[in-house]
């Protein structure tokens, strides 16, 4: 069976110039492809092109085996959720959400029930009778999402559906998206800046960068070994440690001011190591062999701690370490990187 959504050599146009080139992607029904990319790289434009809201620069959009590249938006079976929610100002929240059912001719009592169910799943059921102009930012986002989900399309394009939500609501909305994906077998494309979203909902993820786009891969694979430095930076979980790779092949090692790390297969020369906080061990006081570092600054982030350290010589480095690490400015520590991904500096 062919995929629910296939993009063949799709080119996306920004204004007058071609921005993103040659996208080739299949999304099966029930799958979700997350798209990660820097701001302004063309994610929204890609989605709008697939939805038929702007003309493709080239290539084809195929839905369930049918080439829809020339079809108007309403005949593609694709629903697009705008990045900034657009609600019909003259309809109540409930009528907004019931809209896609009503245009499909559903009896109004049934469409109201379905719409109300979606509102409830997204925790905005008590807003049903309100007009959109009185909603808060996050409420508007959720109502727009409820409306898109209510349409129950073959292909669902979601442009940052989870922005502007607090973590508690976000978790529930993720769940609703999961439900939509698995129970209604929609093929989803999800634009997000948050890898957590991709990990929670997506079956695949691809990165979109000014330099090009990656092939879709499993979200965990991206998290563990991002293909490029740029894509690593998109994830926001890596500390970047500068150093140099010496030796090559299986004996290569990455040398930084905190010591050396085995780096089998890395290219020799100046390198940047991307390291997650749990891949770093910190020893307070000097207990193991290796250089001693003075902690200059400690910044507690939500999930980890960012330490700025200096070696006696004067060079400094920034490392992210586990939230349990207690090292404070002035302390002398040793930092042992257990694992890293090594890239040539950008």
């Amino acid at each position, binding site marked *: 069976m062919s995929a629910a959504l296939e993009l063949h050599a799709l080119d996306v146009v920004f204004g007058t110039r071609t921005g993103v080139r040659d996208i080739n992607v299949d999304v099966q029904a029930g799958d979700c492809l997350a798209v990660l990319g820097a701001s302004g790289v063309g994610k929204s434009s890609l989605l709008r092109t697939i939805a038929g809201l702007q003309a493709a620069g080239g290539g084809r959009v195929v839905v369930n085996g049918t080439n829809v590249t020339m079809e108007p938006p309403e005949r593609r079976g694709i629903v697009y959720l705008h990045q900034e929610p657009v609600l019909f*100002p003259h309809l109540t929240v409930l009528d907004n959400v019931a809209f896609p059912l009503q245009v499909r001719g559903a009896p109004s009592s049934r469409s109201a029930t379905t719409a109300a169910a979606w509102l409830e799943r997204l925790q905005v059921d008590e807003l049903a009778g309100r007009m*959109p*102009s009185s909603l808060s930012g996050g409420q*508007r986002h959720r109502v727009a999402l409820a409306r898109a989900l209510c349409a129950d399309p073959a292909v669902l394009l979601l442009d940052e559906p989870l922005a502007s939500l607090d973590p508690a609501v976000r978790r529930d909305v993720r769940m609703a998206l999961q439900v939509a994906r698995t129970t209604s077998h929609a093929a989803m494309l999800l634009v997000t800046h948050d890898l957590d979203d991709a990990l929670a909902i997506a079956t695949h993820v691809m990165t979109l960068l000014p330099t090009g786009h990656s092939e879709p891969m499993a979200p965990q694979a991206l998290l563990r070994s991002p293909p490029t430095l740029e894509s690593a930076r998109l994830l926001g979980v890596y500390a970047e440690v500068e150093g140099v790779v010496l030796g090559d092949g299986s004996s290569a090692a990455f040398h930084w001011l905190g010591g050396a790390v085995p780096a089998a297969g890395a290219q020799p020369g100046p390198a940047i190591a991307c390291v997650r906080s749990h891949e770093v061990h910190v020893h307070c006081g000097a207990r193991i062999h290796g250089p001693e570092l003075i902690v200059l600054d400690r910044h507690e982030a939500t999930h980890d701690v960012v330490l700025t350290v200096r070696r006696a010589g004067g060079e400094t480095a920034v490392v992210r370490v586990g939230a349990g690490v207690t090292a404070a400015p002035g302390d002398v520590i040793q930092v042992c990187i257990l694992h890293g991904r090594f890239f040539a500096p950008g």
Partner: protein
Amino acid sequence: MPLALAGILLGLPILVGVGYSVAGALGLVGNAAPGGLQRVLGDTQVLRSVVLSLWIAMVGTAGATIGAVLLALAFEGSAPLDRFARAIGTLPLPVPNLAAAVAMLLLLTQSGWLARLAMQVRLIASPAQFPALVYDPNGLGIIAAVIWKELPFLLLVALSLQSLQSLQSLRGSALTAAARTLGATRWQATRRITLPLLLRGMAPSIVAVFVFVLGSLELPLVLAPSSPLPLPLLIQERRQALDAASHGEAYVLALIATGLALIAAGMHEWLRDDA
């Protein structure tokens, strides 16, 4: 599809109209003698007519625009005074031009109501002392009528733009709110944000008023000076003269009037950026 229909319904009559005028100017139809162009170009009366008509259209349109914008901005609220002012401001809208002309005649001539008032309070002693506003070579009476008649139209346009904007931007006028919290005074927010946006929206209507006033016959018919004669009256006079030469000139003049109006419209279209 609608575009094709437009071509037929708008384009065809225009084509026929312009075509007929060109044929008339060349002396091919309608008992019109050729050679009108040279005669018209060498005629200082024509030049004075053109200048007067442009002056009337320009000052009248400017006056109506300023008035409409002023009212739209001053009375945009929902207090009773605002509603009342908007209702009164649009009151002359349904009064046909002809009626507006009569009303201005009754008001403004040297023996009109204003002159009578002036006489009553002994500002003047005879009609001739009252300033000649009607049948006036500067067209002041026509300009007053144009403003009286077109201000309501432009006001309506301005009001409907304002309502469209507030309908679409979800929480009231977010743009002015943004401007004001950035430190713009009410006046600055008006001048830099509201006004430019309003004028952009009104621009086609303003040009339409200009173009309409330039060609309209009814107001000059009742209020115009005999010398110089506004262009529409000159066209009519030449057209109704019985000799073929005048007929030819009428068509040339009609084309000149159309050309002037189209220059205005073209300038507007050209200057407008569609961002």
